[in-house]
Each structure stands twice: as C-alpha cells, then as structure tokens.
C-alpha cells in the first residue's frame, strides 16, 4: 500500500505525520508507546550496578540550544523543550519577580536559557565537538538543569491541586537517553573514542539539582543518565520521517532522501539512500556532510550591524541568536523592534549560508526535507530556491514548531527502538520463566 501523501510527502503512518497533525502517538494497534524500561544504574557509594526503572528521553546537544524530547507522563504526546545555550551566575535580586535559579551538586547558583540572556551578563558556554563541551562543569550543570525542565514539562514531579510543583523533594529520575552529537562524530563503527570518553563524564553521574522558582520555592531532583546512546543529529530528523510508531519503516518509493538541517551553529546535509530490494526490506546507507555555518552566520553580522548603529550595545553570540529569533533588543533600557535590520541582514547573508544547499536543490533525483531552526528563519529564501525547479511533492518543509526540535524527537525514536529491543529480550526471558 502506498501511503505517501502527495500534498506533503509524508506517510500518514510516520511519526512525523502524527506529530504534525497532533495525533496520539500510539501503535497501529492502539497501544501506548513505552515510556520506561527496566535497566540498571551505577551505585556510586557501593560501586555496583542496581536495577532501576529508567525513563526514555532524548537530548539533542545543539551548539545554539539544548533540545530535549520525551513522551508525556500521562498523555500519548511528545513533549519537547528547547533552551538556549546560555549560562550566567545567579545574582541577588532585591525586588520584582524572581528568576528560576539552579544549583547542581556543589555548583554556584546560576541561571540558564532566556533568563541568562535577559540578564545581559551571559557567559559563553563552549561550542563545537562533544569533547570540547562536556569537560566544562558549567556546561554539565546547564545540561542537568535542562533535563529537569524537560521532566517538568513532561508532567513528572509531585504537584498540588493547582498543578504546580510542590516545594519538596521530587524524587530520583534515571534516564535511558539518546544523545545527539555532530554527524561527523559517528561512523559505522560507532562513536569516536573522543566522543565516548567525553560522554562518560556525564554517564551514570548523579546530578543533585535544586531548582528555585520565581516565587522562591525550592524543589529537589536527582537525575542520572543511566544509558547514553550517541546518534548523529541530522539522521534523527530522517528517522521521524521514515519510521512509524510501530518501529517499522514506512512504505515509500523514494530512493534518495536528503535532510537539510539548518541549525544555530552549523548547517548539515544528511543523505540517505533507500536501497529497495526484491523480497527483502529496504537497506539504508547514510552520508552526512557539514555544509557550513548555521544561523550564527546571520546572527554575528547582525550583532555588528546593531553595534554600528548603537555603539554601547554589545551582544554575545547567544544573545544575538536570541535577538534574531525574537527580533527585539534592549536599547537604553527600552525593548526595541529590529525587524528591518534583521530583514536587511538576512537578505545580505542568506545567499552565503544557503549557497551549499543550492546543489542539492538543483540535483533533480533526490527528495529534500528542510528542518532546523534556520529553516523557519530562512523559509522565504528556501522556498524561492526550490520553487523554480521542484513540485511540492519533491520537498518537505517540516512544520515550523517541530523544525527546531525535530532532531531531538528523532532521537527519542532512536532511543525507543533500542529500548524496545531490551523490552523484547526481557519479555522473551520472562515468558521462558513462566
């Protein structure tokens, strides 16, 4: 049965279709997808493994932002969280609404994401390859805070009748995770030695997290990554297009799928050959390429353009990316629209960013899928590129809301696949025991 929709080129059975159309994420038999699995955690004090029930989660460790995904605790929906990669030590506020403040293990108190950017004192966290980032203890603390935000958004934690978290100990959360890394850090043999070594810095490490909310109420969490499955970031978007909620491939006649993933730091292509074989499942072959910088190549010139107009305004990279998204900055204490300036810089710089994408558009034998935060920012320019040579069935613009977090959602699908293998093994061993 051919189920590819000609209007959007998405199979109605795919994860991506269900997410785009807000359908419940259940299997074709109406069953809930697994949220957790029996696994093991490392007991650091007694130096031994202990059994635990681990929640499935995905982390896309982007340069511009943390993107996390997990199924909601109560509903068959995917919860995603995107938090700008920004960190600043917390300051004492003397009045007004408080700021969500974090402390992880013995760290200093700090703010993350938009709160950090808006403080105007944001510190730059390391960007680049996984092993260039995870050694920084501030980055580890930032990551732990992001995981708590993801858990909260997914309905975990102890809540009162008003739905707010109760100001108390929230419990221990052991996460069976997939972890998005730059495509070039993974080969057929698995992750590189440097990447594996870097990920071990956070593997099974207990993060004791104190979160103080805007009203000053404290909650305590213990979060541990009991499994980390590294995956290539851009492939995950393809996975959401290609796999169904049953964990099987969609029925498709497409033979070459190219994901153009325009992220904050970098732009990647991910080419997947779907090798159709007679009387055998489709075989996949994947190749990923770094095409150049992502939206940072627009944010930086925008920062310079702002500085040229307003000499006292100095934005960090993360503040510039945030301004690009919100199209507002504070000038002399006043929030000011910078729509015209953003449009000007996009016009001037988008050709440079999208130059390497053009060859994929002109190559007429592939199917193109545009995703990432930059796909939203540059939609008009991308549509102008594809319109002259392609019909609507030959490309796909991922939904605006899903685009910035699709690599994390795909990561969840990948984590779930490996989790299902463990569950299947457990089920077969328990049926033997009965």
């Amino acid at each position, binding site marked *: 049965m051919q189920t590819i929709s000609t209007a959007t080129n998405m199979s109605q059975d795919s994860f991506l279709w269900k997410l785009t159309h807000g*359908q*419940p994420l*259940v299997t074709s*038999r*109406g069953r809930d997808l*697994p949220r957790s699995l*029996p696994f093991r955690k*490392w007991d*650091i004090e007694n*130096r031994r493994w202990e059994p*635990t*029930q681990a*929640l499935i989660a995905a982390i896309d460790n982007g340069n511009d932002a943390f993107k996390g995904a997990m199924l909601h*605790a*109560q*509903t*068959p929906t995917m919860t995603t969280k995107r938090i700008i990669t920004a960190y600043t030590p917390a300051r004492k506020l003397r009045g007004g609404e408080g700021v969500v403040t974090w402390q992880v293990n013995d760290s200093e108190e700090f703010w993350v994401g938009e709160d950090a950017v808006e403080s105007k004192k944001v510190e730059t966290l390391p960007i680049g390859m996984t092993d260039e980032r995870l050694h920084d203890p501030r980055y580890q603390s930032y990551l732990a805070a992001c995981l708590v935000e993801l858990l909260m958004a997914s*309905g*975990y934690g*102890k809540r009162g*009748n008003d739905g707010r978290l109760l100001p108390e100990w929230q*419990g221990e*959360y052991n996460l069976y995770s997939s972890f998005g890394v730059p495509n070039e850090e*993974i*080969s*057929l*043999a*698995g*992750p590189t030695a440097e990447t594996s*070594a870097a*990920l*071990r*810095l*956070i*593997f*099974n*490490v*207990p993060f004791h997290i104190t979160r103080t909310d805007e009203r000053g109420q404290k909650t305590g969490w213990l979060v541990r990554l*009991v*499994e*980390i*499955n*590294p995956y*290539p970031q851009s*492939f995950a978007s393809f996975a959401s297009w290609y*796999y169904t909620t*049953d*964990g*099987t*491939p969609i029925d498709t006649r497409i033979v070459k799928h190219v994901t153009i993933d325009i992220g904050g730091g970098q732009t990647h292509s991910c080419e997947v050959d779907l090798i159709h074989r007679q009387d055998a499942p489709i075989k*996949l072959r*994947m190749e990923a390429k770094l095409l150049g910088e992502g939206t940072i190549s627009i944010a930086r010139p925008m920062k310079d353009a702002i500085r040229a107009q307003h000499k006292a305004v100095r934005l960090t990279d993360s503040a510039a990316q945030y301004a690009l998204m919100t199209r507002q900055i504070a000038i002399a204490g006043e929030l000011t629209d910078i729509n015209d300036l953003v449009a000007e810089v996009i016009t001037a710089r988008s050709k440079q960013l999208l130059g390497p994408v053009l060859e994929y558009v002109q190559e007429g034998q592939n199917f193109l899928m545009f995703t990432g935060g930059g796909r939203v920012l540059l939609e008009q320019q991308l549509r102008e590129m594809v319109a002259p040579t392609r019909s609507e069935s030959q490309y796909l613009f991922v939904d605006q809301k899903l685009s910035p977090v699709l690599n994390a959602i795909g990561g969840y699908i*990948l984590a779930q*696949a*490996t989790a*299902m*293998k463990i*569950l*299947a093994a457990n*089920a077969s061993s328990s049926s033997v025991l009965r």
Partner: protein
Amino acid sequence: MSSDPRNIRNIPDEVTQIARRISQHTGLSESDVLRLALCSGILVEATKVTPDRSGTFAGVPGAYLAKALRRHLSSAIDFLLEQGQHPYQGTLGTAAPAQISAAPAFVPESEPVYDTAMADELEGMGFGMGLSMGMEDPVGA
C-alpha cells in the same frame, strides 16, 4: 479501615454542589459520595506518579491498579465515547465515518509485541551502541 478523621480543605464550591446533587439523586449521604469519589480519584492519582524502583505506582502493582481502575472508569469511558470526547476516539474505531477507514482497529492484547527490526537496522549503521555496553565500571561515576 482507618478511622482517624481527615480534614480536607479547599474543595471548590462547584465540586461540593455536584456532590450534593448526586446525594439527592442517589439517596447516599454527601459523606458517602465524597468517600466514593476519593476512592476512585486516588486510583487515578496513582497512575500519575512515576513508577518506583520496584515498578509499582504509589505502592500499587500496575496490573492490580489497572484492574481496580477499570471498574471505576468504565462508566466515565462510556460517557466520553458517547459525547465524542474520548481522546483516542480515532484509534478506537468510533470516529466520524470519514476517519474510520484510516483508523487502526483497537485490538486489546495481553502482552505488548516489540518490533526490533529498527534497532537491528540502526545497529548495522553504527547507532544504538549505548555506553553501558560492555562497561563494568563507569568512568564518569
């Protein structure tokens, strides 16, 4: 049964009014209505907590909780279906006629079936190799 009194505060007025109406309709006392609501409500609340280390929900095993809940929720589920408000109406095969053909049939099963083809395919591509594989003593910890 515990006999020590529990003073429950902050019950919204609307809830008290509904309880009063049920009481008038059924002949049960208001206290009985509230006690029944607490019994079924607490089972629903138990489904909202994360399973603990032994896999129970607030101390109640999942299979037991499911059986207990079924008795309490069947009338509510019937009502939601009747009113077209069930969140999985499409997948239950009671959607509008146009949706029925596309909606998968709901087949209750005793045990889930896990398809491992995707994991096998990913392993062949170099993905899905978790750090815990073959690791006896985690370096990070």
